[in-house]
């Protein structure tokens, strides 16, 4: 290490920069290869485990079979009754309905509770009672009340997304800097003006963190809702895979669910960067 650095000093500045960049590129490349190796090794091991009958194909299908099924499933409704595209749309529909509702209700509620003490005192006990009940345990009651349609599932998803939206909006606006509030006060702003000109923008970062958690929650809860009360959707599809003892269907479902979750996270990250660009400076 010492020798490399000492020799580096004898180089000119341009060469030093080039050397440094080269070294950086090399390490990035090395670690990237390591990551790819890890993933590939896993897939190959998996493929071999099934092909050599180390694991029975009744329990596990190979990655290649899953890819194959993906193509087939695009146009084949067997065994759960819908093609893959319809299942995805059906799931997205439910998840986004519940998630959207949670945002529209949860965030304003959290903001108001965080800003107005009286409203907080009134709403807080109700929220604290609802909060610790896991969304999944609402499923039976929901089925009785609303059946197994879109409404019922959206309601369950709503519950899982609502809590983080509200909590983060609440804490976010609570953290508004007192200095900024004082500045606005000396300018003669009313409490409501301060609330929406200073309080709400201050809470954005926290709100976004909450939205991210909420999105993950709704997607996770959706699967549960669809397994317990549905006739289509990705959760229903993997449940049918279980019923028909088709591991390939289950694994395909898992992969699709996971991938959509990743895409969601990515899109939300992009949106956050767009909206909160000033944060990075």
């Amino acid at each position, binding site marked *: 290490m010492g020798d490399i650095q000492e020799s580096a000093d004898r180089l000119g500045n341009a060469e*030093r920069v080039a050397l440094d960049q080269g070294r950086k590129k090399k390490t990035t490349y090395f670690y990237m290869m390591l990551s790819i190796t890890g993933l590939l090794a896993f897939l190959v091991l998996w493929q071999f485990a099934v092909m050599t009958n180390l694991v029975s194909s009744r329990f596990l299908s190979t990655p290649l079979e899953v890819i194959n099924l993906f193509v087939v499933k695009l146009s084949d409704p067997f065994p759960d009754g819908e093609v893959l595209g319809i299942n995805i749309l059906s799931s997205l529909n439910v998840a986004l309905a519940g998630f959207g509702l949670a945002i529209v209700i949860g965030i304003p509620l959290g903001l108001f509770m965080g800003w107005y003490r009286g409203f907080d005192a009134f709403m807080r006990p109700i929220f604290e009672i609802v909060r610790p009940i896991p969304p999944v345990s609402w499923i039976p009651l929901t089925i009785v009340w609303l059946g197994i349609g879109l409404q019922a599932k959206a309601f369950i998803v709503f519950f899982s997304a609502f809590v983080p939206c509200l909590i983060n909006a609440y804490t976010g606006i609570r953290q508004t800097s007192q200095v900024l509030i004082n500045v606005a006060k000396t300018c003669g702003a009313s409490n409501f003006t301060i609330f929406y000109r200073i309080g709400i923008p201050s809470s954005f970062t926290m709100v976004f963190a909450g939205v991210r958690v909420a999105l993950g929650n709704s997607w996770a809860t959706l699967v549960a809702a669809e397994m317990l009360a549905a006739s289509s959707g990705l959760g229903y599809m993997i449940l049918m895979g279980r019923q028909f003892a088709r591991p390939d269907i289950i694994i395909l479902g898992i992969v699709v669910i996971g991938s959509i979750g990743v895409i969601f996270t990515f899109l939300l990250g992009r949106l956050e960067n767009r909206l909160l660009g000033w944060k990075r400076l």
Partner: protein
Amino acid sequence: MSMDEKKIRLRLEHISQSYVVKNEVRCAVDDVTLDVYDNEFLVVLGPGHCGKSVLLNIIAGIEKPVAGQMFLDGGRLLKSDERIGMVFQKLALMPWKTVMANVEFGPEVRGVAKGERRAAAQKYIDLVGLTGFEKAYPNELSGGMKQRVGIARAYTNNPEILLMDEPFGQLDAQTRYAMQEEIMKIWEMEKRTLVFVTNNIEEAVYLGDRIVLLTRCPGRVKQVYPIGLPRPRDTVDPQFLRIRKEISQNTDLAL
């Protein structure tokens, strides 16, 4: 005063440090050559961000310089050495350890038996005036007290050379004066070679046997001032003020 007879403990030869930042070479320390004498209180003075801390980090072995060599008692110094201790600018007390556990960290790392290291730690806890706070956590202490813990921690490892990186930079003015007296007192009781970094001219003149003045970024040695004033020094003594003014006029403005 036998200034010329002093034994050299630490020698820096042509030390340079630079970093590649956003495809540009940024120089932090440029060609610093410096001798530190035995039991001397050496102050490295310079404007903000002039590379003084980098220089200390290099001596402490936290960073490796891109060029130059260091010698400790004639032997090459290549990495962190037990004979060199450090008091950190940002305190760097571990919040999960009690005062006692923080102070005895050095001997503990070296594998010294519990009883022995406890005794050593207790000695310095008493010396910095923190008796009774052994079981407290750093979060419960005031800024000045925290820095005392930092000093006790460095001393407990029994280093021959002690580096102090703007230890009082984050204290309020009152506490700062008190701590300056304190450090002087400790240094006189427990003679060590001390390298003290600061950006405060008054502090430098108050404490140092010699002051090494660095230029603004990149840090180069601009001038060395031996301070012959008797101790304890008086900050409003005309002699003191004259030296202070002289250094002040020669100092680059921090940007």
